[in-house]
C-alpha cells in the first residue's frame, strides 16, 4: 500500500510499514544516525535522527520523533533540519564528544554541528564506546547473544556474563564490524583470532590447510542455525574456485571436441 508524504517540502512516496528514515534516505535526504544498522531492528538510543513531524490533523502541533522508529503515514509532513532538531543533535554530539573525545566519527559529526570541543566534563579514562547498543543487537540477531548491556544509567556498559570472557561468543566479529567508533578491538594472527578476552581457532580449509575467515565455532553455529551441511563451511574460496574451474575446464574441453554444453 503506497501513499504520499512530504519531507522538507519534497513530495515522496512511502509504503505501509516503512519508517521515515528509510523513505528520506531513498529520496536522497540525509539524516545522521549512529545507532542504526539495517541488519538489526531500530533502537532509538542515539536520538540523532530526530525530525520534526506534523500532520494537517494536528492543527499546527509539531513533535520531535526519531525517524528510525516513526512509521510513515499518509499526509505526514517532515522537517529534517529545523532549529529544534539541530539543538538536539548539537547537544547529543556535544555530550557524546565529552564521553568519547577520541572517536573519529563523533569528532566529524560534532564539527558538522558546530562542536569542535565538548563543552562538558570528560570521563577520567574515556574509551570509544558510545553505548549505541549495535554490538549487542547484532549479536542477538546474527549470533548467540554473548554480550549484553549491563547496569543502569550512567554506569551502563557493554558487558559479559560475570564480567569474564563471554562463553557463548563464536568470534564472528559482527560486533566489531557494526561498531560505529571502532571501540571493539580484535586481533588475528596465523590461525588464531582474539576478541573479548577469548581465543578462537580459525576454521581450516580441508583442501589446502590454510585458515578460513571464519572460526571453528562460527562454522558450527552457522551449520546449525542456517541449516547447512557443514561441508559447505570447510573449504576456502580459493580451493572451491580452483576445483570448480578445473571441472568447468574439463567440460569446455569436451565442448571443443564437439559436445554441446551450456554453462549458465
Amino acid at each position, binding site marked *: 500500500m503506497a501513499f504520499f508524504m512530504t519531507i522538507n517540502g519534497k513530495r515522496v512516496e512511502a509504503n505501509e510499514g516503512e519508517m521515515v528514515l528509510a523513505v528520506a534516505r531513498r529520496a536522497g535526504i540525509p539524516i545522521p544516525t549512529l545507532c542504526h544498522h539495517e541488519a538489526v531492528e531500530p533502537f532509538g*538510543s542515539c*536520538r540523532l535522527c530526530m525530525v520534526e513531524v506534523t500532520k494537517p490533523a494536528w492543527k499546527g502541533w509539531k513533535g520531535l520523533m526519531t525517524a528510525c522508529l*516513526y512509521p510513515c503515514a499518509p499526509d505526514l509532513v517532515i522537517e529534517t533540519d529545523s532549529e529544534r532538531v539541530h*539543538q538536539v543533535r548539537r*547537544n547529543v554530539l556535544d*555530550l557524546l564528544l565529552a564521553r568519547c573525545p577520541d572517536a573519529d566519527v563523533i569528532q566529524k559529526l560534532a564539527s558538522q554541528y558546530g562542536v569542535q570541543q565538548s*563543552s562538558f566534563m570528560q570521563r577520567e579514562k574515556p574509551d570509544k564506546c558510545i553505548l549505541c547498543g549495535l554490538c549487542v543487537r547484532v549479536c542477538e540477531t546474527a549470533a548467540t547473544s554473548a554480550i549484553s548491556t549491563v547496569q543502569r544509567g550512567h554506569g*551502563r556498559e557493554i558487558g559479559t556474563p560475570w564480567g569474564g570472557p563471554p562463553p557463548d561468543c563464536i568470534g564472528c566479529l559482527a560486533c566489531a564490524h557494526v561498531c560505529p567508533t571502532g571501540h571493539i578491538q580484535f586481533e588475528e594472527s596465523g590461525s588464531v583470532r582474539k576478541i573479548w578476552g577469548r581465543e578462537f581457532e580459525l576454521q581450516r580449509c580441508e583442501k589446502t590447510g590454510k585458515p578460513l575467515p571464519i572460526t571453528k565455532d562460527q562454522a558450527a553455529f552457522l551449520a546449525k542455525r542456517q541449516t547447512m551441511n557443514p561441508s559447505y563451511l570447510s573449504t576456502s574460496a580459493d580451493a572451491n574456485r580452483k576445483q570448480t574451474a578445473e571441472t568447468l575446464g574439463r567440460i569446455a574441453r569436451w565442448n571443443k571436441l564437439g559436445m554441446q554444453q551450456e554453462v549458465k
Partner: protein
Amino acid sequence: MDTHLRYDSVEAFRSHVASLFESPEAKKRRVLVCCGTGCMAGGAKQVVEAMHEQLQAIDPAKKAELNLVMKRTGCHGFCEKGPLVVLMPQGLFYKNVKPKDVEAIVQESILGDGVIERLLYVEPSTGKPVHKYGDIEFYAKQTRVAMRNIGLIDPANLDDYLLRGGYAALVKALTTMTPEDVMKEVADSKLRGRGGGGFDAGRKWRSCKSAPGDERFLICNGDEGDPGAFMDRSIMEGDPHGVLEGMILGGFALECKQGYIYVRQEYPLAVENLQRALRDARARGLLGDNILGSGFSFDIEVARGGGAFVCGESSALMRSVEGKVGEPRAKYVHATDKGLWDKPTVLNNVETWVCVPRIIEHGSAWFTAMGTERSKGTKAFALTGRVKNTGLVEVEMGTSLRDIIFGAGGGMLSDGPRGKFKAVQTGGPSGGCLPEDMLDLAVDFDTLTKAGSMMGSGGMIVMDHSTCMVDVARYFLSFLVDESCGKCVPCREGLFQMMHIVSRICEGKGTLEDLDRIEDLATAVELGSLCALGKSGPNPVRSTLRYFRHEYEAHILEKKCPAGVCKALITYGIDHDKCDGCGACLRACASSAISGTIKKGETFQIDLLQCDRCGACETVCKRGAISAS
C-alpha cells in the same frame, strides 16, 4: 471471617452481605490500630500486641457487654503522628501511641468514658486538642474518594470491605449493565489517569477495546517511584479489594481475561495484602472463573518490580512484566495497540483503578460534580516537607495549593523567618518548584503545567527558607541520574552533565555561562529524550531557575548559599558568649576539627580546613552556641 464461603451466584452474595449488616459483627465497637508501613516503623506491632493482651485481660462479662473487636487497619495517611489508635464509633483519635500507653487507653477510654489528653492531637490553627477523628482539620478538609476506606477497615478481612459497600459496584455491573455501559460510564465521568500522565481513561479503554486482537490485558501501575509519594502504597496496603474491584470492572468493560498489578520491590506489605485479597476474592467467587456465576471470568496476578524508578514508565513496566530489562521503548505505537506481549493493553495507576467502583456505584454525574472543567473528581496528595501535618490529603480537583498546605496541611512547621513558606515542589522528579505568589493556583491536571510544574502523581513537598533551591535541583537531578535506564543519550549523558554543573554551582565553582548552558541542554534533553523520565527531568532545574534565579546567582557571584545548606559555602562558628566549654561538640566531631580546653568556653575553635560541614556539632550543642553562616 469465613474462609469456606463461596458465592456461586449474585443472590448468594447479596444474601450474605445482608446478613453481615444484620450480624453482631457490624455492630461491634472497634479499636482501630493503624498497621500501615509508617506506623509499623513507629512500633505499631508492639502496640497491637499490648492492645491484644490488654483486651484479652478484660473480665469476660464486661468483654461481652462491650462487644469489642480490634482491627489492624491500613494507613490513615497521617504517618508522622503514628502509631495511631482510633476508637469507633465515637471516633476518639489518639496519636503517637506507645505500648506503655495502651493500658491507660483500655482503662480510661474503653472501659470508661475518659479521654487521655496527652495522646490527643492538637490543632495547629486553634492550639486546642481535638477529640474526634472527623473534627481534625487534616481530615475534615479532605474529600476522600480513592482513600475512603483506608484506616477504617482491616485490609485482611474481606467482610470489612463488604460492610463498607464493597463489590456492590461489581454486582451492579454484572446484573444491570453491559460491558459497553461500563465503558460509557467511565468515559462520561471524564476520569483522567492519576499516575501523572492524566490521559483520559475512557479514551484509553476505548482505544484498547477497538484494537484488533483476540487477547487483551490490563495493568495496575503500583510502582509509585516519586520520592515522598505514598498514596498508592496506602491504597494497596489499606484497601486492596478496592483496587481489585476496580480492575475486575475494567476487565468486564474491556472484555479481557487477565490483569496484572505491578508493585514496586520496596512495598512488601502491599504485595502481602494484595496477595491475601486475591486469595480471598478467588475463594469467595469474586475473582477467577465464572465470577458470581455470571459467566464472566477474570483473574489478576501480582508482578513485583526489581527496584527501578524507570519501571514506573508504562512501556518499561510492560517489559519488566515480560521478564525483560525495564527499558522504555518508542511510544509511536501505542500500548493500547501493542502493549504487554504486543497485545492491546490498558495500563492505569492504582488511584485511577480505585475510583472506578465509586463511579459505577454512584454514577458519572456524581464524579463530574466534583473538580474543575477539565479535571473531574478528587486527587490524593502526599503532603510532606516543612508543614505541620504531613500525610495523605485527598481533595477535590481545583483546590488551591494554599488551601491544601495551609488548610489540611496546618501551615508551616517552624516559626520565624526561616520557617516562612518558600516553595512547593509538586509532581515529583517530573515536576517543578512553585514560589509563594503561585500559592493560589488551582491544583489540577493543567493549571500547574502552565506555571512550569505539574500535578504529577500527587507528590507535594513544602519548603521553607531553610531549603536551598539549587540544592533541591541538584537532589532531583542526582535521583534521576541514578534511576535513568541509560538507553538514550540525552537522558543518560545530559542529566548527568546537568547534575555536575549544578553541583559545581553548589560548591561555589559555577559561572553565569553555566546557567545558559543548562537552559540550552535542558531544552535538548526535554525534546530529545526517549521517555518521560528524561523529557521531564529538566523540570526541577528549569522551574528553580525561573523562580529562584537570584539564589543561583548568589551561589555563583557571591559564593553564598542564602539558605545555609550548601556545605562548601557555609562555615560553622562557635559563639563564645554562649559556649560553656562542655566539649560535646569536640566529642561529636568526626573530623577532629574542634579544639578547646574543657570548661573554658573561650578556647573552643573550629578548624575550617578540617571541618566537613556535617553539622553534628550544631546538633549536639545544648547552648545553641554553634551555627552555620
